[in-house]
Each structure stands twice: as structure tokens, then as C-alpha cells.
């Protein structure tokens, strides 16, 4: 299962300055673990000590917020695209 993951600017220092990386795994959780294997230290930036995405991080699978799906246990398949985006944007 290879999926494309878009990484927010503050995390690009950990991904050799790449804004898009490939990762493998059958669920969002597995993808995050795989990212950690590739880019040590990235998971603790995205997730809290319980492994859940931090309050100020949103994760999208193919443009849908994973909170509308099954959260971190949402299944992913080949060719899917994941975006990790800071939650603080928009509104006034």
C-alpha cells in the first residue's frame, strides 16, 4: 500500500525538505508509524502521547477529514492521498 502524504511546512525539516513523501500502511495509524520509520521524530510532532493526532493538526484522506471517517483506524488503499495540515487557519 503506497500512498502519497503531503507534509506541512513546519515538518519539512524532518522530511529532507520534501512537501510530499510516500508511505506504506493499511490504516492512517500504520501510515504514521511508517513515516516515523522513514523520518525519525515526525510522529511525536503529529501525535500526542496517546498516539492521537494533536489538537492543532488535521489529517485528511482524499480531501476528507478523517474525523468524518474512522479516525486513525481509517483504512487506506493504494493510490490514496493523505494531507497533514495545521488546524489553525481560516475564519475570523
Amino acid at each position, binding site marked *: 500500500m503506497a500512498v502519497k502524504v503531503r507534509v506541512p511546512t513546519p515538518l519539512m525539516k524532518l522530511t529532507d525538505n520534501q512537501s510530499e513523501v510516500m508511505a506504506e500502511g493499511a490504516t492512517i495509524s500504520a501510515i504514521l508509524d511508517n513515516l516515523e520509520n522513514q523520518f525519525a521524530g515526525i510522529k511525536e510532532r503529529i501525535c500526542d502521547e496517546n498516539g492521537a493526532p494533536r*489538537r492543532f493538526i488535521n489529517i485528511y484522506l482524499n480531501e476528507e477529514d478523517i474525523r*468524518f471517517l474512522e479516525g486513525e483506524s481509517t483504512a487506506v488503499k493504494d493510490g490514496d492521498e493523505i494531507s497533514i495540515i495545521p*488546524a*489553525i487557519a481560516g*475564519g475570523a
Partner: protein
Amino acid sequence: MGHVKGLICKECKREYAKEPIHVCEFCFGPLEVNYDYEAIKKVVTKKSIESGPPTMWRYEDLLPLDEPPKVGLHTGFTPLIRAKNLGKALGLNHLYLKNDSVNHPTFSFKDRVVSVAVSKALEFGFDTVSCASTGNLANSVAAHAAEAGLKSCILIPDGLEAGKILGTLVYGTQLIAVKGSYDDVNRLCSEIGANHDWAFVNINIRPYYGDGSKSYGYEIAEQLGWKTPDNVVVPVAGSSLITKIWKAFHEFEMLGLVDKVQTKVFAAQATGCSPVTTAIKNGSENIIPVKPNTIAKSIAIGNPADGYYGIKTANTSGGYGEDISDEEIVSAMKLLAETEGVFTETAGGVTVGVTQKLIQQGRIKPDEVTVICITGNGLKTQEALADCFPAPEVIEPNIKGFEEVFANSLTV
């Protein structure tokens, strides 16, 4: 002017230089403007403010620009209306409306944030401004970009009201409608921002932009005679305005311009998009995002960026959150127009209707000083009232025709 030390993370307090950035690199918390309050204390007094221009720029020392404002010089200092008729209808003896439906130049409170954001974009040297908008922000960014001589590219959800679309296009901008809700547009803008070196007013300029809203709170306090109200009812979308009104009141307290703030802050949403009021009612501090479905499109944000802080503001202040149906929104818009002669957009229907509900619940009491926030103009959301009124009678230009119709209407 020029009292900004830098930016600071609202969560972990890490400090950053004055740059077009909006989140903490470490915890992803929101960055806020870090003011030099000691310097501000030395220059800001009631007298210094009162001798300033009749615009939001009378509070320039408390706004995040390093240079004098370059656009939006006539924005703000909108009327605080003593609403005796609406107060009588609702059972309140000291009711006020803070009426930004007549804000300059695009008739919503967004002119406050955008005049700051576009002035800041010019300071940073950007040549293009952009935003994700539910309509009012689109109008204001397009107008201020035109004034600034900057290019603009504006993204909105498809299906917005005709007045909001035309009221953006007229200024000469590229307007793009995105299939989906505001939340889809907002996510897309964050992604576009990674590849385009633009000033996204509510993304990378957001720390500065948001503080433009403080002027709405300063004006309420000054116009009440340097007092903060007992209650303020605020429309909530992304939850920024509600936190900035609270911040404004507390800055005035710190500067000795008002007594101790005891204002209860109430969040108002449409039931069809109420992630913030739902969390408040459930006693939760976590937002569960929703898919918006309401006529109050200007505040239809299902995944509010500052939702967590909006909840905290309402709770800390001793306020609450309530929401009303689309039918109640329309009734409240009509009630406000019929009692006070103020035609607000759907979001203003939300605050008026929610106030009514809070009174019924006993949370707002008759003798308390209450301010309802009216943040947008009804002429922009005419679709909301399209089916409410029959077409006017058409008559021949003679007395007989008139008397027939007039008598008829009296029998209704």
C-alpha cells in the same frame, strides 16, 4: 504605532519574529501578536483615543502594524445603537446593538480584519492577497486589494448568495468557487499556500488579521462610556471574533481604561452548523466537526480553527452557547428590522434569535447591559427572505387605485 515585539505561540509560548507565519513550528498552536504593553501603557489613555480619528484607527497603538495603515482608513467606529424597541420586544431594559452592517467599505465586520491584513501584506511586500471566505471576507479582501493596488485571488464554497458573489467580482479579482463547504475551501487554501507566495489573510497573515477584530470590542467599551457590558452575544463561525472581543475588553482593563471585566460572553450559532455551541452545551472542550447545513452561510464553518478557544472564552466568562433553527433566524431578522430599522444578514438573525432564547432561559436578565453583535448587512443575503413577503401591489397612477389597495392592506 509600532508596539509589536513579534509573534508568540498561544500554547507553548515559543517566540517568533514578525513574519507571515501563523502556526508554531513545534506544537502547531496558533501564533499571536506579542505586544509591548509597557510601551503601550505610556501612550494610550482615554484622552489619546478620544482625540483619534472616528475610525478603528483611533486604537492604532493596540493594532499590529509597524507603519501607518495603508488601506481601510475609514473602517470602524460603527454605531452602538441603544435598542429600546427591540429591548421592549425582548424584555430587556438596557439593550444595545453594535452595528457593523454599516461598516466601511463592504458592510461587515470583516473590513476591520482586512484593513489590518492588507496593510500588513503591503508591509511584508506581497503582491497578491488571497483568502478562504464564506462571502463577507471575499467582499472585503477584493475591495481592499483594489485600494492597495494588489492582485487578489479569492476562494469561496460554491452556492453562496448572489450578493456576496457580485459584491466580490465588482472589485476586479479572480474569484474561484470550490465544490464543497467552507472547510473544504479552507483546507485547499492551506495546501495552495505551500506553493504560492501570497498573503492569505486568514492563513499566513492570520495573527495580524485576527487582531483587527479587537477594534470591535474596544468600540463597544468606549461607546458604552468606557464600560464593558454585562453580556455580549457574538456570532460564531471560526471563533476568532469571540476571543478577540474578550481580549479587547481585558486589554482595556489592563490599561486602566475600564473597571474589572465581568462580561459574560455568549456564543451564537445556527443549529445547522453548531460545533461550538454543541460542545459548550455538552460541557466538552473538544470540537466535533460537522458538515454545515444552514441559511446562515456566512458563519457556516463546521471545523472552526479557534473553536477550542471560543468554548474556553464562553466558559471562562460565565457565558454560554446557544443555537437556533433557520426559521428562527428569519424571524429574528424580521424582528430586528421591524423594531429597530436595521436590516442584518443571517448571522445577525442568529445573534438576535439566540439572545431571545438566552432571555427565556434566564441566562440574560432584564436589567443587565446587553450588547448584541450585528456583523453583516441583510442586503447581501436577500435569498434568506425571498419567500417571506408578497410582491408589492401594482396600481394605476390614480387615487382610486391607491385607496383600493390601501384599504385592502389595512384589512390584512
